[in-house]
């Protein structure tokens, strides 16, 4: 088990390095204005001087190596020049990460707490009215672009439910709309896949055998079907992590949450190259963490997936 996780982690780090390299190279193709708050007022000599100071005139490969070395040795992600003047990126991010993390985790929990029971109820009443309404809801959420229903939630949430529009960290009421908006795509996602896998499982022979044993439908649903349907659901966990990250970019600007998502939009608008680079790398890491968690969860739930990874290396 430890060996498996170690291997999995090592592979993830390689993936991450590749992502960093790609992002890094792409950022070098951006205009250099992104490194100067007052580019227009500077002479070409000043610009050359500054670039030399920042080490940006070195070959890309060397820059990348220095960047990675700084990440590992100093935990530094570079320095912001435009968004903040000469402030390390990590200092800018430090107060924002916990907030976004809280928001994301809360949204994931809400999604699980609503999505899983919804999927279970739909599977139990397959083909009945509850199932049809649920399917309608899922199709609607999956088909309509998130931006559209995010706006609807904002409009009707504030109009009808009288919930506050502006986010304030200390006011619990202001958390409701952003968290719910962030959870909504995942609610439909979990419900959709859980229903599908539960319906799949419930036609299997071992369910019939459980019936023959004398278990009631209800007990079979929870003791056998739900647990077995949950395993394939593990592979969708990474997607829900990404859903949350993507959602947060939009939601945080929508409700003025001073978190990472809002920040990314901000720094892209203001073209702060080092900030964009750092945040993109962080978000990519979240996606990779989602993948690892999903994989580990599946190995824990399904004894047929071997830890050693000899059969069917993933």
């Amino acid at each position, binding site marked *: 088990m430890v060996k498996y996780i170690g291997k999995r982690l090592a592979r993830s780090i390689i993936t991450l390095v590749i992502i960093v390299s790609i992002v890094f190279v792409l950022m070098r193709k951006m205009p250099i204005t992104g490194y100067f708050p007052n580019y227009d007022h500077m002479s070409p000599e000043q610009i050359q001087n500054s670039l030399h100071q920042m080490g940006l005139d070195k070959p890309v490969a060397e820059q990348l190596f220095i960047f990675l070395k700084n990440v590992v040795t100093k935990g530094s992600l570079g320095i912001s020049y435009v968004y903040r003047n000469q402030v390390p990126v990590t200092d800018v991010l430090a107060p924002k990460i916990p907030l976004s993390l809280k928001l994301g985790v809360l949204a994931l929990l809400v999604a699980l707490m609503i999505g899983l029971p919804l999927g279970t109820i739909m599977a139990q009443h397959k083909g009945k009215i509850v199932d049809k309404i649920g399917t309608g809801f899922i199709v609607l959420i999956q088909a309509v672009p998130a931006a559209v229903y995010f706006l609807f939630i904002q409009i009707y949430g504030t109009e009808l439910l009288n919930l506050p529009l502006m986010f304030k960290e200390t006011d619990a009421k202001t958390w409701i709309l952003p968290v719910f908006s962030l959870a909504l795509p995942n609610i439909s996602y979990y419900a959709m896949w859980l229903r599908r896998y539960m319906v799949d499982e419930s036609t299997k022979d071992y369910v*019939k055998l*459980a019936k023959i*044993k004398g278990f009631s439908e209800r007990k079979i649903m929870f003791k056998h079907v739900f647990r077995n349907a949950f395993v394939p659901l593990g592979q969708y966990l990474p997607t829900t992590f990404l859903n949350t990250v993507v959602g947060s970019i939009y939601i945080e600007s929508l409700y003025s949450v001073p978190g990472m998502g809002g920040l990314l939009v901000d720094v892209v608008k203001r073209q702060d190259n080092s900030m964009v680079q750092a945040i993109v790398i962080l978000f990519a890491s979240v996606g990779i963490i989602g993948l690892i968690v999903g994989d580990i969860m599946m190995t824990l739930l399904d*004894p*047929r997936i071997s830890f050693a990874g000899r059969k069917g290396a993933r």
Partner: protein
Amino acid sequence: MEQNQKVILSVKDLNVKFNLRGKVLHAIRGINLDVYQGESLAIVGESGCGKSVLNKNFIGLLDPNGFISSGEIIYYGMDDGQPQVLSNYKKDKEWLKIRGSEVSMIMQDPMTSLNPLKTIGKQIGESLELHQGLKGKALKEAVYGILRDVGIEEPERRYKQYPHEFSGGMRQRVVIAIAIACRPKILICDEPTTALDVTIQAQILELLKDLKERYNLTIIFITHDLGVVANIADRVAVMYAGDIVETGMVREVFYDPRHPYTWALLSSLPQLGVKGQDLYSIKGTPPNLFNEIKGDAFAPRNPRALAIDFEEQPPYFDVSPTHKARTWLLDPRAPKVEPPEHLKQMRAEL
């Protein structure tokens, strides 16, 4: 096994129908059958004749579009002696007192019958916990005992293993263990050896015979393998197109078959084929059960059919107290029709 034994399950004039795409399929057409305590009864017939459908009624697993249109199934095995009219059971809840503890079943494919994510110990223990309220150490010990009974060695180690760590034959042993864990009185075996290879088949049949004695089981065997029938059954019921056409003790039906369908079925045994001759096969196809069947259902495929076979359904004629067949050939007025020559030859050889 004599006729005066206690009846444990009685089927009276049972008719089962299915709603299929707006049409009604008449799957079981007026079956009468008594199952005696402690016997092993084999129900044979070709695919689609209704063997499985009949047995699903005994444990309440009929598909949702199927229903009993008339007739009764009565179970006499309850400990309090109260007869239970199974055909009147509507809700799942009523079946819970029958399934597992009174009537149990083994399915065809052991590879899919077990939950892949639970240890086999848990899966066997589950029903003991449910029906007998065993817990903890007592539960574990009971499971070890059952594992030993079905011939699984090192139960302590096997208990903790998952189904994918077992071979097909071993899995079928586990399935059997689950089925008998709560000491049911009737065990329905729905082609339990079809998915296994021949050497394992023999072992499983031996195991079932052994368990039948030790657990005092009544076994209903569904099969189309006549070799299995000869091996394990006391009595045979031959089914054709949703009806039982001939019943009797195994030796009676094998050595002195009376119904033309039984003749045809026995003639189709490849083991009994004569070298150099084509294998026998029954011409034509079974009747369409969506339509009303007139006369003897087998008549259109029977080269020796009498005129009356197409007109009127024959009643049962007794051949012996334990042997009866549903064919006009046994009517005293019928012309004397001999069974096919090769069957007689076979009998002489046996």
